[in-house]
């Protein structure tokens, strides 16, 4: 008789913590109103399937995304974040995403430096016409974050008195 021994899924930052069975990651998706949110809309109206792990927030522009949003998402429910905006040159506000790009890199490197796996913080450029690309991005991000296991770092509720 053969039994399948499945590797237990552990949190990559804290290998001593094992994920509960059937654990699914929660991914915070922060999308800009003009491109990525419209792109995700197109994914839905074109009936393309993508994982339900992503929870989407709409912001006016990718440069509205304060690094704070990422920190706070990771500290509350999210196991990873995906920020998406218009392609460089396509920004509705002309240059917003250029400013955002700098902040994203610094935030990603800083979070990685203090001990978050770099795949937990992801960025993409998705235009309003790229429905299939949005599905692909969400698939890839979900898959990558699933491999990392649950996030247990600095979670707000872990430190609260019951």
């Amino acid at each position, binding site marked *: 008789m053969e039994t399948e021994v499945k590797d237990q899924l552990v949190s990559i930052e*804290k290998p001593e913590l094992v994920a509960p069975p059937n654990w699914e990651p929660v991914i915070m998706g922060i999308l800009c109103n003009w491109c990525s949110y419209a792109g995700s809309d197109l994914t839905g109206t074109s009936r393309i399937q993508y994982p339900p792990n992503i929870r989407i927030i709409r912001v006016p522009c990718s440069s509205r995304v304060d*690094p704070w949003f990422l920190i706070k998402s990771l500290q509350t429910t999210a196991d990873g974040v995906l920020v998406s905006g218009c392609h*460089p040159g396509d920004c509705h506000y002309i240059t917003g995403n250029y*400013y955002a790009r*700098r902040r994203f890199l*610094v935030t990603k490197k*800083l979070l990685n430096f203090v*001990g978050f796996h770099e795949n937990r913080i992801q960025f993409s450029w998705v235009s309003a016409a790229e429905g299939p690309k949005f599905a692909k991005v969400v698939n890839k991000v979900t898959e990558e974050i699933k491999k990392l296991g649950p996030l247990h770092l*600095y979670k707000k509720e872990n430190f609260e008195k019951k």
Partner: protein
Amino acid sequence: MNYTKQIQDIAAKLFTEGKIDVFVGYRMNGFDDNQVPVLITDPQDVSKLVFTDKSVFNLVNYLKTDHTRRKRVGLVVKGCDSRSLNLMLTESQVKRENLYVVGICCEGIVDDSGHKMQNCVECVVPDAVVSDELLGTPSGQKPYMVNVDIAALAAKPLTERTAYFEEVFENCIRCNACRHSCPLCYCAKCCIDQETATLYNGANTTSAAFHALMTWSLHLAGRCVDCRNCEKACPSHLPLHLLHKQNESVIYENFQEHLAGVIPEDRGAFYKYSLKDPDDFIM
């Protein structure tokens, strides 16, 4: 490095000419050979002023207080301090015409054990960039070096870094001394306080400390001048420079920016962009 005599003379001259209301300098603390900042308003007190390689604090921070606001101020700045002054001028926090700046061509300050501080070893701009009067001989800009602690930590595996920083954030007591001692944290109401009050109900947890210190360091990304006033003020002796130097090195290496506050009227890396900024981390 000893400019005690020169600084006393300059301060005395400024008071007799009536050019300043208050002079910000250093004095001996009175019980060991360390120094503390002093605000002098009485010309008779100028003999208290000293300046040696133990003058560690960043005096630009005192331009935030009510004792100096809207007054004519004389102050002493080292290389790093002058960069933070440059940023405060750019951000319209102080008026240049109200200041008389004594710039020092710094040779490095020493810590309690007599060693040159690490930020002075790695200092890029030792000469004051803002000054009305420059003391010492300028030695010019030095090449940029990645901080040794950053390089050592970045080479470690992820789990070790995680454990290391968890201990760091756990030891923070949320006294906010880091924020108060930083010349560039001048906001009348800090947004972190509001968030701590709502998100954490004012509690001091590791999670709240992480949230506060990360936000704080990102508010100073591209602006921090590595004077390490924050680190000297921290009662828990946390290695706060790690967060700032990490941001600084990412900005310096990826955006080809000069360091914060070196160029007048330059607001820092996050206030501009380049079409050549790295894009490969974005899908």
